[in-house]
């Protein structure tokens, strides 16, 4: 027992404050994108998933893989900031116009926030996810993020849950399981689509084996973009849903 105590003393207290400071993100981290207003044709041609539309001068963060190919192709047209707050309560809210400012949103209605604001249990469903989104949800349970301090917890059964967090493009082979898990969750309930796949199909958009995201099967209350989203982006999205604009 003494060895454990000595090691605990040596490693110290490691739970990080929330909201996170900029030192939590690599200087090469690609967060919230910004369109400068310059023509997008060149940048759009570099996008592997068609997230940029030159005709509409718009960037759909829900499809974006945050690979940075657009900014590399035309740095004058697209920039990536290091802002990790990317969530939106609506799918259209993730579409950025040029010059406009994006503000993360997506809080649940006041009665649900009152209900879930201090105690929110989520059942995670991986439906074709590559295990990167799943891993970054798992990491929220570690002592560094300490999800529990916000009253949020991932639970084993949908019967114990107040909502679902869905990852992956929803494969046809997971459609039934996702629907059953949703049905097994007692209402009122909330659904979070986490990651480019769950929001829009991600790199698998258009594949006949997938349904193009969680909204094809269940009603989604919160969309969190990224491939995968940074754990702080996911945490920000979850807390925004149940607590409103906290930061």
């Amino acid at each position, binding site marked *: 027992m003494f060895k454990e105590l000595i090691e605990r003393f040596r490693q110290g207290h490691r739970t990080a404050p929330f909201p996170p400071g900029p030192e939590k993100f690599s200087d090469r981290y690609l967060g919230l994108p910004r369109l400068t207003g310059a023509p997008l044709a060149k940048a759009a041609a570099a996008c592997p998933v068609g997230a940029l539309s030159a005709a509409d001068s718009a960037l759909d963060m829900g499809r974006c893989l945050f690979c940075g190919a657009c900014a590399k192709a035309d740095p004058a047209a697209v920039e990536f900031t290091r802002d990790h707050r990317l969530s939106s309560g609506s799918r259209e809210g993730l579409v950025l116009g040029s010059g406009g400012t994006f503000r993360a949103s997506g809080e649940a209605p006041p009665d649900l926030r009152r209900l879930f604001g201090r105690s929110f249990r989520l059942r995670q469903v991986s439906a074709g996810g590559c295990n*990167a989104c799943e891993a970054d*949800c798992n990491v929220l349970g570690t002592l560094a993020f300490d999800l529990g301090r916000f009253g949020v917890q991932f639970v084993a059964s949908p019967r114990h849950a107040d909502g679902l967090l869905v990852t992956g493009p929803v494969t046809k082979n997971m459609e039934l399981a996702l629907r059953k898990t949703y049905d097994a969750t007692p209402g009122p309930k909330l659904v979070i689509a986490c990651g480019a796949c769950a929001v829009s199909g991600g790199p698998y958009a258009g594949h006949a084996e997938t349904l193009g995201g969680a909204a094809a099967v269940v009603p989604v209350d919160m969309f969190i973009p990224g491939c995968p989203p940074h754990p702080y982006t996911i945490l920000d999205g979850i807390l925004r849903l149940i607590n409103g604009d906290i930061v």
Partner: protein
Amino acid sequence: MKLFGPAELAALPADKFFTQLSASLSDGGRAAAYFASPADGGRRLCAALAHDRAGRLELLLSEPLSDGFPSLTPRFPQLHLFEREIFELSGLRPEGHPWLKPVRYPAGGPDPGTGDFFRVHGPEVHEVAVGPVHAGVIEPGHFRFQCHGENVFHLEIALGYQHRGVERALSAGPGARSMHYAETLAGDTTIGHAWAYCGALEALSGCAVPPRAQVLRGVLLELERLANHTGDLGALSGDVAYLPTASFCGRLRGEYLNMTALICGNRFGRNALRPGGVDFDLEPARAAELLRRLEDVFRDTEGAVSLLWDTASVTERFENTGPVSRADAAALGLVGPAARASGVDIDTRRDFPYGPYSRYDPPKPGRGDVYARAYMRWDEIIRSVRLIRGWLASLPAGPLTAPCGAPASDSAAVSLVESWRGQVCHAAFTGPGGGFLGYKVVDPSFHNWQGLALALRGGQISDFPLCNKSFNLSYCGHDL
């Protein structure tokens, strides 16, 4: 990464193909990949055979086949899933396969998890079904246990829930999304699969990746191994309710991921590798910062992990749980730490050295239980740290990337990378224009799932989480 030019791609008549395949497998060859690929007038079988100790990679091709072919699974169990996959994807029937059922349940066939399962009959035998949605934050799969009380006679694993058509889409490449498909074949193995994909493309185009890029790829691959092995040791200790190591390692895993992000901005190494080299440099200040963090985090990892080996209640629970014998591991063609822990001494970094690896010395093989699989990870953590230290001490100068042109026509490339779970194998075939005719991905999990099933035999249901973590296999890497 080996290129096979048109002259080396001579097709064998079916009988010769199977004779030669059997001979190679009897001779200690291991099927790194075995699949059907489109060919004039039908489908031909391709086998990429790794002769690990000799460091020789052999590619066998059959002439186009039209219907059935003799199953070699009864003699060589390592082919069991490959033959099922061939049947599912091409319709070529392996005659005499003992358990020919779907692998990924593609649309148009039976629903996933349905159909026949191996059953044990008897008055007190009962069946336990788990999944596809599991208790933790984990990917979906279906597990059927045949039990007598708590004792497990047999476990059958049915996957396919994560099937999203990624291999099919890769076969239509190379294209704009191909690199992203490779990076998401198994998200926790982003670097491993990205390297295998780049390696195949570079071999096909004759691109010589600059030494600095090779070393940076090595750093990223070893960081991926460090993150996952550390996470696994934490998860294993969590499963035996030893919380100090579980808590420490949960954080430390994240610190290794953050080191990857220090290099490329993404914790999983997305966007770091591109055909021809790497997209990010490690300037002197960044290299120094990486080394400083590595030393800090390794010291904490050492402190956290050594608690495991010093705690009798942990070692007692790990020892003799989920044993897989050396003979079984070899017969099933297991790879990676799971194989090495069972005494099968293979490691791509030593047997088929690539990139910056030379004279890699894998840890001593273990005796096949959960303890051996856990200790193997610790041994590998030490080696990964040593490798990164060595590379950072003498980073080669020079460019980060070399032009990677169009792939050669009518050729094939087989690319092998030792990811943290074991050998990743990508095989690409090009047609007359240099576009892919076929692209085959074999994640280490494809070989190893049956190893997990075997580990449970004679064990208890309550051993399952522990055995499962000790393999920690990929669902999406299997389901493709």
